[in-house]
């Protein structure tokens, strides 16, 4: 980024260096190409940047910590400055974390910066992912990049978990104990994997050193690699943009990367850095000195992992505990296996979502204009259901705190959350879909009849009407520029058989696109405009606006696909239309 100095007033020191570089590596060409990349402006496009900058902060603070942290589990007697632990036996790892906290200049600040930025990193990556999901930015050609981003999120969790376990305090040991238990719950291979990981029986003497190499080498290296791929693909694909006049699937509207965007981004880095520093100087995080060194016997109430592991902890807590059976030569701990499977399945669905949706729509075109969430009601609703599922699992990790803070019975809290886990996502799906469809219908009204101004006029013949103000072109464009799919039917393959996959696909397609509101087409718009011109005229017959629009609609439907099907309420009416439309596709 500092390469922006290559713009050349001749003869200056920098210009000469730049020239030197250019003649040897062709920097100017690269920079010209890169610098002319365009990046559109919208606050939600900055979430990925927040993640990136938090990661940079993680790298810097983590490197500082490596200078002082010692990943060994040999027992020592603590003799540092922290009074309440003086004389206690503990591992070198824990002792060195205490030393970082109390004796290394700036050490505690760096630990807190590292930990707060870890929370920020994963949170930003998660929010960024939600933005991409709800705007449909994962569609062709960006499916692979979604996958890369998803892996980054998972690696973020892995980085956090391995880091959390390093200080070897009571909480981190409790966390590892849970991992150990989960591994051992896996049939057949579980206990072997556990003893491989811990080099014998838990906790062993190797785990901190092993996690250390994962934490400071493998995971960050993978993250950096994938980040490079991720950003490279953003450059290749170019950025998406929200719809607006002149914004198409074939262009990008925004500022050039160089110099406007680079300057902005540089500034933004310091803002993120500053916020993290502010938090880290003012608020304690992970006060390991309170927890004491790890010792397998004590367990503390309120033992929780960092937030990004919370949903898995929640899954474990919510699983009915009686699902453990003896037999077939072993113990089958379904109370561990089910949450494990649910977690993996959830992640797989998230990772594979773009491919699933593409399979359902069969859409082969490239998309560079983002969807407004309301314009993809079922996708948005599926997303809302997924978020709810995750959030309920997450709340499940805090059952004890909910119980004590709201003065409820722990058992009641647990049961309520279990029920919520099953009912919540369905409810969220339903509500979100309804809201999205309603918003689409509102948009239609606004496009056809303008905004309500609140000005009421009395006509000579006594009728009161409200003046509607027509939309300007920009507003209008945003409201009509989207694509509405129609359900596809199961069609026989070359052998004339309808395969199971085709049937599944057809019913998924129906699930996605049965209820829909189509965008307003040209003809319909013209008809509405025509009608609107006459409306305020004195002679115009009083006529409610709705029927007029409806009359216009069939005409439009004849030519364009812009049929006004009032979704949801009149289910039978739309069936034939959907069937007719199906063969047209593909």
């Amino acid at each position: 980024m500092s390469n922006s100095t290559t713009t050349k007033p001749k003869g200056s020191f920098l210009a000469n260096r730049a020239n030197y570089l250019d003649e040897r590596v062709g920097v100017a060409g690269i920079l010209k190409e890169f610098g002319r990349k365009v990046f559109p402006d919208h606050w939600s496009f900055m979430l990925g940047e927040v993640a990136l900058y938090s990661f940079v902060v993680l790298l810097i603070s983590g490197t500082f910590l490596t200078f002082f942290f010692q990943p060994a589990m040999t027992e020592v007697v603590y003799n540092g400055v922290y009074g309440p632990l003086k004389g206690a036996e503990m591992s070198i790892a824990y002792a060195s974390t205490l030393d970082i906290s109390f004796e290394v200049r700036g050490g505690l600040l760096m630990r807190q910066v590292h930990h707060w930025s870890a929370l920020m990193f994963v949170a930003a990556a998660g929010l960024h992912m939600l933005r991409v999901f709800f705007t449909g930015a994962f569609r062709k050609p960006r499916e692979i990049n979604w996958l890369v981003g998803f892996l980054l999120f998972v690696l973020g969790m892995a980085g956090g978990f391995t880091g959390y376990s390093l200080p070897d305090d009571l909480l981190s040991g409790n966390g590892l104990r849970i991992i150990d238990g989960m591994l051992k719950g896996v049939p057949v291979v579980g206990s072997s994997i556990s003893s491989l990981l811990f080099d014998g029986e838990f906790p062993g003497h190797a785990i901190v050193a092993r996690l250390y190499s994962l934490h400071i080498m493998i995971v960050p290296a993978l993250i950096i690699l994938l980040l490079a791929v991720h950003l490279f693909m953003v450059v290749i694909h170019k950025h998406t943009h929200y719809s607006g006049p002149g914004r198409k699937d074939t262009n990008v509207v925004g500022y050039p990367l160089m110099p406007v965007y680079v300057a902005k981004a540089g500034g933004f880095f310091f803002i993120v850095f500053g916020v993290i520093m502010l938090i880290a100087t003012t608020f304690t995080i992970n006060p390991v000195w309170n927890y004491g060194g790890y010792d397998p016997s004590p367990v503390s109430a309120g033992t929780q992992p960092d937030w990004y592991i919370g949903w898995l902890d929640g899954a474990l807590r919510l699983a009915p505990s009686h699902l453990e059976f003896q037999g077939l030569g072993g113990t089958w701990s379904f109370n561990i296996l089910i949450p494990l499977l649910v977690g993996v399945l959830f992640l797989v669905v998230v990772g594979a979502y773009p491919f699933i949706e593409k399979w359902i729509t069969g859409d082969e075109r490239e998309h560079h204009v983002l969807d407004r969430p309301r314009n993809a009601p079922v996708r948005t609703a599926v997303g809302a259901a997924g978020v709810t599922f995750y959030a309920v699992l997450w709340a499940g990790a805090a059952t004890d705190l909910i119980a004590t803070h709201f003065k409820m019975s722990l058992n009641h809290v647990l049961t309520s959350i279990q029920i919520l886990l099953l009912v919540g996502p369905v409810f969220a799906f339903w509500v979100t879909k309804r809201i999205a469809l309603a918003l689409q219908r509102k948009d239609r009204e606004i496009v056809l009849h303008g905004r309500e101004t609140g000005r009421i006029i009395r006509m000579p013949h006594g009728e009161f009407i409200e003046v509607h103000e027509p939309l300007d072109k920009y507003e209008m464009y945003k409201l009509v520029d989207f694509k509405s799919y129609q359900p596809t039917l199961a069609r026989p393959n070359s052998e004339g058989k309808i395969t199971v996959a085709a049937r599944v696909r057809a019913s998924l397609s129906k699930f996605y696109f049965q209820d829909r509101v189509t965008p307003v087409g040209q003809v319909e718009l013209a008809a509405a405009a025509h009608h609107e011109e006459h409306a305020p005229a004195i002679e115009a017959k009083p006529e409610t606006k709705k029927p007029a629009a409806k009359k216009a609609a069939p005409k439009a439907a004849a030519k364009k696909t812009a049929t006004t099907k009032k979704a949801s309420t009149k289910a039978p009416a739309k069936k034939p239309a959907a069937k007719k439309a199906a063969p047209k596709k593909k």
Partner: protein
Amino acid sequence: MKKTMKNSRRSPFAAALVIAAGLIMSGGGYAFATAAVESATPVSAVSSQEQVAEGEKLFLANCASCHGKNGVGTPNGPTLIGVGAAAAEFQVDSGRMPAQASGPQMQVKPVQFTDEQIDAIAAYVGSLGVGPEIPTEEMIAANGNASKGGELFRINCAMCHNAVGAGGALTEGKFAPALVGVPADHIYEAMLTGPQNMPVFNDANLTPEEKKDIITYLKYVETNPSAGGYELAGLGPVAEGLFIWIIGFGIIIALTIWLGAKSN
């Protein structure tokens, strides 16, 4: 502590930090002072005859309905013979007794008696049978070994009360209360008598010396603010997670929206 302060002196937040640190310290100092005053209330080991008589009167009026005449117990309350003066003082002085609504666990209410009355009731209950005595001031002074106390606390108490005594949930609406601000004599008596769902830690389990260490540790945690800045109620990762999502991201998103708006 000193180090972090020095480090951030040059930052623009220094003023806020200094104020914050000042607040924490004066708050801590205040808590320390009140704790000191409270533990200074006289705890008499020997009780006079008049005291017992006075206690009996109060007992008949306030407690006998549940605990029966002479503390023999009724279906509404257990016998108090042999629970000792320590149990009575803990229960009444912490506001648990006389019990009110029955729930999963007797709740703490405002204390209903004066210190003299409580001493009298305790003396009376203590006279009913041999039981744990009220600890002397020396036994509860916070001058033991905090390091050992911390270890004992983590082994014996943290599973219910949380590693820093922030409290925790038990089953069926029962809970282990937070121990911040609990006077030293109550801590000692709670260990000695095991109120309700808490186990008894008699002098064979935890010697008086070890009890003193635990008190020392708890008082240390209570009066020494965290070196790292504000503690989020000692609740650990859940509070931290909520903080980063609500406050951390609140600030970040507000700033991104502000930046986005600037360009238009």
